[in-house]
């Protein structure tokens, strides 16, 4: 397998007038890797994806996809990409199978090839029984799976997934993640943007945390948690009016604390032991929860804000 990066971004920039959407980000993505861009809405993730997809001109920096500049070789780059947009753009007037076949035609594929290919994709997306139904009759999760299947019609080596599970219920999300794992096993490179930390932890081998168009941190989910957080987090609720009042007493009990509007987070290696210290200090939280650190905590540490406001 080639060890050259399939995507190389150097000092990538995008400006809209005075507003800088992407502010000089650099990263490499290796073949077969599952790479994530984690950040809140408006961080510049989708803009970056569109530049990679060759449908948005950059304002500065270098970008190559499989060694080609998407601005100079747009059709050749897009021919080997699968794009799953944030918002489904299926043709709701067509049937499920027709959507797959028609999309494949845009890659110059023949109808006879697409007839077979669509059957394979319907099975992959678990939509075989819905093949002849109109798209407007599908559930949100089914539409999403169809959009992903459609993005695979050209057998892409790189799949760009922009917020793949936004708006889906938990069961639909897990079904989708399962499908994406299978693609990863087949060697497809996945580029995923998300503002869900659990999704990033589930799907990404490596990720960049993006905020206001800049990279705040880079690494595997485990590395980032190790570097920017503690092993465990103790979440305490004292009631919104009292959270601020107990901060002084809590500060000595943990490595770091964060006060959110509805709760206080205590960063510590052993959550249960810290909870015991809290009660010994005479504090009586309304609720308490010990959990492992997540990327949400990493983001909070890096930006001082939560991912989903």
């Amino acid at each position, binding site marked *: 397998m080639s060890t050259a990066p399939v995507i190389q971004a150097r000092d990538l920039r995008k400006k809209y007038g005075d507003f800088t959407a992407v502010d000089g980000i650099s990263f490499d993505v290796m073949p077969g890797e599952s790479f994530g861009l984690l950040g809140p809405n408006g961080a510049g993730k989708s803009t970056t994806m569109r530049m990679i997809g060759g449908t948005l001109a950059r304002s500065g920096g270098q970008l190559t996809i499989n060694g080609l500049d998407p601005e100079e070789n747009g059709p050749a780059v897009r*021919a080997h990409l699968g794009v799953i947009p944030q918002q489904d753009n299926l043709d709701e007037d067509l049937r499920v199978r027709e959507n797959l076949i028609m999309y494949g035609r845009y890659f110059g594929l023949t109808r006879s090839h697409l007839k077979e290919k669509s059957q394979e994709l319907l099975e992959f997306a678990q939509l075989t029984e819905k093949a002849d139904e*109109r798209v407007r009759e599908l559930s949100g999760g089914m539409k999403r799976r169809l959009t992903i299947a459609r993005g695979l019609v050209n057998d892409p080596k790189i799949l760009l997934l922009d917020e793949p599970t936004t708006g889906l219920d938990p069961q639909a999300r897990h079904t989708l993640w399962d499908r994406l794992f299978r693609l990863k096993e087949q060697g497809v490179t996945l580029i995923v943007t998300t503002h869900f930390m659990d999704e990033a932890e589930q799907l990404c081998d490596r990720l960049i945390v993006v905020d206001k168009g800049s990279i705040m941190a880079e690494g595997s989910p485990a590395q980032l948690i190790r570097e920017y957080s503690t092993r465990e987090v103790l979440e305490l609720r004292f009631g919104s009016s009292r959270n601020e009042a107990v901060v002084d007493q809590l500060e000595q009990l943990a490595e770091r604390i964060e006060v959110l509007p509805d709760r206080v987070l205590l960063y510590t290696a052993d959550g249960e032991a810290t909870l015991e210290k809290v009660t010994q200090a005479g504090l009586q939280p309304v609720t308490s929860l010990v959990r492992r650190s997540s990327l949400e905590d990493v983001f909070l540490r890096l930006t001082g804000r939560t991912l989903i406001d």
Partner: protein
Amino acid sequence: MTERVRRWGALYHAEHYLLVARAFLWTVLLNAIGTPLLYMVAMGVGLGSLLDAKGTTVDGVSYLVFVAPAIMVATSAQSAFGENTYTVMAGFKWQRTYYGPAATPMDPSQIAWGHQIGIAIRYLFQASMFWVIMVLFDAAPSVWSFLAIPVTVLTALAMGAPMQAYAATLDSEGAQFTTIQRFVVMPMFLFAGTFFALSSMPIYLQWIGWISPMWHGSQLARWASYGLAEPWWLRVVHVVYLAGLFLLGGTLAARTYRRRLWS
């Protein structure tokens, strides 16, 4: 693969357009057959028989022969308005279907031209149905009357492509489309010499006909259908005007599609 798309991409989008039209096959068929039938009966059996009974002829032919080719042109041209407004808005906003192919090796300009090719094929079918019904009603006496079919398609394109270019610039649909329908398309239809010769109107109203693609198309269709006498240079003007509008509208639309889908 990309070479094939570069060469045939517009046809792929036309294929998409026709596939969607097929989903509404019964509506398309009903429209293609019902509209000419209604007009033929109303103008032939109704208004036409009244005028003809009084010995009133226009251009020396029966009223039905006079009016039929113009109605064939005008109904397609009006219907092209809808195909280039609401359909375009669906592509950019309501269903965002244009954004799918824009992420493939396709160029957005191919989506724009493909839309027009799809429309041309659809109106080729509709105009052919209209012509067959005209023949059945003895409303197309010339052997060259079939030429009214391509004339109708060209008029629909000339009417539609500038609308497509305009619709592509809109982010949302307020009252723009209905306003244009009422205050631009309808006057162009009513004052374009469809139901009477344009020369019978006061000179200060005739300009509406001169700028209306429907008048240019109707005159050409009448020439094909029953041999309307006009100087040859005027026929050239009709063709050049219609082709010019189509090419100008199509080029502007292609440019707007590129700007919107790739920025």
